[in-house]
């Protein structure tokens, strides 16, 4: 790997949901005694063949297509970045660390935009969800490899978000002032807030009533 140098030509193309970006090292397309264009053509054919196949990951399918006929001569790195097409239901499993909160908010904000939730309601849902997630992170305090899950569902007239963790709410946490305020914010921002504490963990389920336009 040489030092980083700026590219001479930069082109911007849209990366729309459902698209895949393939990143690879030269070993994937280069063959000794062959023009590089043939390698590119082979990769294009492999990618479009892999597109319609099922099973494995897209990167694995492209790789399988490529090595089907010819063995590779060099080591290869191949990375596929997929922009998920978002449906009416979003399910996430996250590490119980405060560092996931910002990307959780961005992912859910993007999902809400796709679900035609207007700006103000989107902000309310994202903030309330972030509070519930913050509590889930706090419950796992000190636990190793702890995770929590987030489910978001869109129906014709509402958005429901659920945060589940496997921890328990401590009655007198040192953070109790913050948590009291967090709960109050959730109740102000959402139409329904349901908090269930059980032996197995805590579930926060919240509803925002917002009709689909049209």
């Amino acid at each position, binding site marked *: 790997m040489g030092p980083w140098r700026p590219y001479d030509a930069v082109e911007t193309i849209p990366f729309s949901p459902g698209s895949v970006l393939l990143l690879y090292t030269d070993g994937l397309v280069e063959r000794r005694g062959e023009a590089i264009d043939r390698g590119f053509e082979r990769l294009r054919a492999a990618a479009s063949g892999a597109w319609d196949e099922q099973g494995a990951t897209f990167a694995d399918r492209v790789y399988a297509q490529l090595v089907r006929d010819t063995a590779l001569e060099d080591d290869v790195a191949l990375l596929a970045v997929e922009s998920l097409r978002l449906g009416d239901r979003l399910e996430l499993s996250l590490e119980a660390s*405060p*560092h996931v*909160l*910002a990307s959780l*908010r961005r992912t859910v904000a993007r999902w809400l935009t796709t679900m035609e939730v207007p*700006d*103000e309601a989107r*902000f309310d849902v*994202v*903030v309330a969800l*972030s*509070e519930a997630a*913050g509590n889930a*992170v*706090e419950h796992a305090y000190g636990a190793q490899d702890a995770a929590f899950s987030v489910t978001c569902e869109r129906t014709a007239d509402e958005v429901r978000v659920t945060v589940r963790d496997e921890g328990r709410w401590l009655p007198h946490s040192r953070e109790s*002032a*913050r*948590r009291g*305020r*967090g709960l*109050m*914010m959730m109740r*102000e*921002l959402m139409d329904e807030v349901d908090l269930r504490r059980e032996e197995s963990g805590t579930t926060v389920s919240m509803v925002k009533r917002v009709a689909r336009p049209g």
Partner: protein
Amino acid sequence: MISRLLEVDGVAVAGLPADVDAANAARLREELAYTVPHGSRDLVLDLADTRYIDSAGIEMLFRIAQRLTERRAVLRLVIPPSSHLLRLASIAGLDRAMRIHETRAGAVAAARAEDDPTFPAGEPPAG
């Protein structure tokens, strides 16, 4: 972490990042405690670039406001009128513990006006 800390007409102004939450609130508070001048000077925190703030971030603001109040100074937040944070600030009661300004110039002018009673309130300084 603090995106910018500057002094505008003798008033300390710090820009807060896009996200102020449990991941960075403690560190922001520490940074502000170190960098903010002592004495009874007001502090302006600019939230114009801040998109989200959670209860940990709000707690941090309350604590800074309390410390400034003890020194008879005022915490001033800059939140543009179009920002959703304005609604959140009112839900959380931030507007009762600190002053909220629409623009940075307005916040700085108000801070200077309280520092110096001869300074006209509500107007940015000339020049």
